């Protein structure tokens, strides 16, 4: 019964989405305040209906309602309770419900937290979100309804959740990722609303900045969690595989990073306006493209959902309408935009443009690398595969100039920067980072040039970031002594940038060192055997059997010694899930600040020995730590007083201008 209510509620959400897409838009066009005022209650309605629908599906999971086809396919009676809650997004239909749930949450957030923005703009933005919503709700109801019944013949027990997803990382990875993906729909809607209204000035950039940063922070966390999950759950010990599904999430992140920076330039300097709009359209379009690639089964990947051409066709239709429509609108309107800022060849504008160029190039590399095999095959030239070596090589080329710009950009001035003034600082920064990188690498037996390069880049970012803080404090007070209390005067959004850049440097250290100095051994061991890897002695104690709630497992016990001290006792598992007939590895990992010790259990060999993988991974946790710092920077940026104060200050002003058709761009506040 509750499932039918859930289904009905989903239909109601579709109806509110339809209304939301019509009334406020019509109201904005006709200048009709009541119609525009409909936007907020409709957005809330859409959120509540979706939320109730989501609740109903969760209820069905928790109460083992196997008469629902989706529950029967993704859950089982013996599934541990926490996975019944998270199993809701363990398959195609449910994860799409989570997707629309998050989508309606963003929509309602825009409706509630946009008091500072003119009513007309909010009405348009919400109407566009509603229009996007129509597509997604229709998709759910027509091709992937999680409430479909298996009556009258339903199974006694379900087919169980895919064991890969029965894991903590999987509990939080998809919601974070979707928050990011879907969050770009807000920046997209702001851009489209600006295009429709023809007011492509810098105000829309100001309004969509916090939303973009929020979405970007979630996406950063989502990507890091996914990478972390792949590391410990897939048992390969790698942290990035250039799998199509990873690429699908990475492209919006790259475009989103570019957008975040470009929005800053557009807001502060009123230049690159049409480029910024294009990036806003691209970031969300790439999210949609990623959804299509993963859910249509066009590409082979670990993630691929059961492929059904009708679903793929529907999403493709959505892509054609949403992306095609917005690019068409873009072509009509962007050509009339004039960027009127002035700047010279060496200036922060140009350096940020450089950053954008490299991020865009990186996005294109991933896009081409992901789609080229498909295009190649459809052109009848046979099948090829593009793997990690291609991406790694391209990214090594791209990251060097990118990082160079990343160091110089924050140090330089808007409009015009004399190169001579920077010369001294940059020489010092380069000297410092080069010597630090070389010194650290000398502590390894075999120095890797790539690791030196990676560390030079990390230190370069760190040193220039610190220099920038110094410079900022000096310019604020015109005094030469930079003492600690001065640091407090920097705005939170400034600290956001600092953390974002430092986080990137931290992640880069992890990537460089783990790529160059990992030690990976696949060995055969009998109980009692020992092996020394990078000074750590691994002793294999043997394998014991274990019975879990919905699986059986072999547990391999491995003790690790350094010198005579026992530093870790690792347990690597090999689980067998009988319902899905799946074998899973759970690696035994000892995480440390400077290294991870990683043990995974392989097959039992014929004479009773076991094959065991033993990895020593230096600094690998820094990769995810760095991503976390970056996301934290995003959070700091959003919480900046500027956005809160501006809201209060503008409230009055916005109310006054709401009814006039020419809402003036609000005064620029350059921090």
């Amino acid at each position, binding site marked *: 019964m509750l499932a039918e209510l859930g289904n009905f509620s989903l239909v109601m959400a579709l109806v509110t989405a339809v209304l939301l897409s019509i009334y406020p838009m019509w109201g904005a066009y006709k200048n009709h305040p009541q119609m525009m005022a409909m936007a907020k209650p409709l957005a809330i309605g859409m959120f509540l209906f979706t939320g109730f629908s989501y609740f109903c599906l969760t209820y069905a999971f928790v109460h083992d309602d196997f008469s629902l086809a989706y529950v029967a396919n993704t859950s089982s009676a013996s599934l541990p309770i926490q996975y019944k809650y998270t199993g809701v997004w363990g398959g195609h239909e449910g994860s799409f419900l989570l997707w629309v749930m998050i989508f309606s949450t963003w929509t309602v957030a825009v409706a509630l937290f946009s008091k500072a923005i003119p009513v007309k703009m909010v009405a348009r933005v919400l109407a566009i979100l509603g229009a996007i919503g129509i597509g997604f709700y229709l998709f759910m109801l027509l091709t992937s309804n999680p409430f479909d019944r298996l009556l009258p013949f339903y199974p006694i027990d379900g087919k169980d959740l895919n064991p890969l997803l029965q894991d903590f990382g999987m509990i939080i990875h998809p919601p974070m990722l979707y928050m990011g993906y879907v969050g770009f729909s807000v920046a997209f809607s702001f851009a489209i609303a600006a295009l429709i209204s023809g007011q492509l000035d810098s105000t829309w950039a100001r309004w969509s900045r916090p939303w973009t940063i929020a979405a970007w922070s979630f996406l950063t966390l989502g990507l890091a969690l996914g990478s972390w999950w792949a590391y410990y759950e897939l048992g390969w010990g790698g942290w990035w595989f250039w799998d199509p599904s990873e690429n699908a999430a990475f492209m919006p992140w790259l475009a989103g990073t570019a957008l975040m920076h470009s929005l800053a330039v557009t807001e502060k300097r009123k230049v690159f306006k049409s480029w910024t709009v294009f990036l806003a359209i691209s970031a969300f379009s790439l999210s949609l493209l990623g959804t299509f690639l993963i859910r249509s089964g066009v590409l082979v990947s670990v993630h691929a959902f059961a492929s059904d051409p009708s679903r793929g066709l529907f999403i493709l239709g959505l892509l054609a309408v949403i992306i*095609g429509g917005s690019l068409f609108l873009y072509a009509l309107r962007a050509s009339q935009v004039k960027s009127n800022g002035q700047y010279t060849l060496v200036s922060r504008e140009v350096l940020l443009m450089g950053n954008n160029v490299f991020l865009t190039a990186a996005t294109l590399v991933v896009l081409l690398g992901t789609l080229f095999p498909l295009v190649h095959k459809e052109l009848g030239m046979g099948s090829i595969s593009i793997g990690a070596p291609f991406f790694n090589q391209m990214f090594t080329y791209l990251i060097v100039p990118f990082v160079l710009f990343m160091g110089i950009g924050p140090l330089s001035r808007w409009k015009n920067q004399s190169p001579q003034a920077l010369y001294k600082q940059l020489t010092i920064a380069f000297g410092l980072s080069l010597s630090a990188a070389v010194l650290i690498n000398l502590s390894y037996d075999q120095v890797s040039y790539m690791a030196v390069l990676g560390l030079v880049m990390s230190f370069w970012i760190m040193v220039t970031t610190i220099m920038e803080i110094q410079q900022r404090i000096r310019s604020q007070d015109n005094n030469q002594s930079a003492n600690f209390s001065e640091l407090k005067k920097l705005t939170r959004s400034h600290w956001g940038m600092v953390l974002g850049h430092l986080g990137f440097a931290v992640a880069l250290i992890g990537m460089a060192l783990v790529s160059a100095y990992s030690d990976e051994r696949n060995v055969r061991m009998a109980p009692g055997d020992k092996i020394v890897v990078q000074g750590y002695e691994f002793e294999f104690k043997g394998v014991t059997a274990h019975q879990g709630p919905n699986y059986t497992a072999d547990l391999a016990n491995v003790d690790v010694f350094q010198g005579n001290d026992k530093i870790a006792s690792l347990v690597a598992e090999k689980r067998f899930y009988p319902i899905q007939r799946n074998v899973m590895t759970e690696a035994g990992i000892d995480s440390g600040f400077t290294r991870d010790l990683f043990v995974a259990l392989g097959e039992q060999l014929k004479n009773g020995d076991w094959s065991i993988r033993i990895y020593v991974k230096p600094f690998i946790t820094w990769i995810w730590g760095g991503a976390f710092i970056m996301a934290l920077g995003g959070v700091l940026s959003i919480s900046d007083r500027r956005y809160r104060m501006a809201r209060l200050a503008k409230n009055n002003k916005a109310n006054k201008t709401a009814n006039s058709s020419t809402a003036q761009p609000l005064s620029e506040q350059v921090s």
Partner: protein
Amino acid sequence: MNKTAFYLIPLFIFIGLLTFLYQGLFSNPREHESTLLEHSVPEFVLPDLMDTQKKHTQDVFIGKITLLNVWGVWCTTCAIELPYLKQLQQEGKHIVGLYYDQDIDPDFGIKTVQRVQQEVNQTYSQLGNPYAFNIFDVKRNLSLDLGVTGAPETYLIDKQGKIRLHHIGDLNPRVWANKFAAIYAQLEAE
């Protein structure tokens, strides 16, 4: 107007992309076409499975239409396929095996060649031997060069030693009728 045309570029690129995505929907991503189609079999010198002193090279394919079948005793689908291959052989087809063994591994290797031969003979006694001879791809180099993705796979090679067809998965009467029969007849006529 020129300016609008410039801003229309992304839209056109996107439309181009859409057509490929549309086509992609209706083709199977797991289906691979060998990159070597219409090319000669790559050069190799490999031992015969049953007599490792005897060496085969790419020239063994010259002069006869050959079905090169990639298999191993460890592969269950291959075992299902063997009786049908036997039937093909009785119809007069020339079938050569490309044998590779998963357990002969530099790190974990515990199998001897004698052991492999014994296992193969055992399989023959149960299911029949369709092969004229078997090329033993010890290090799997030839399989890699051929673009083998797994077993079983079958290559149709013409009298000049050129690969004309690559089939992934087992060979059965249906696959033969749909995919092989026409090309085989054409090759016989050449």
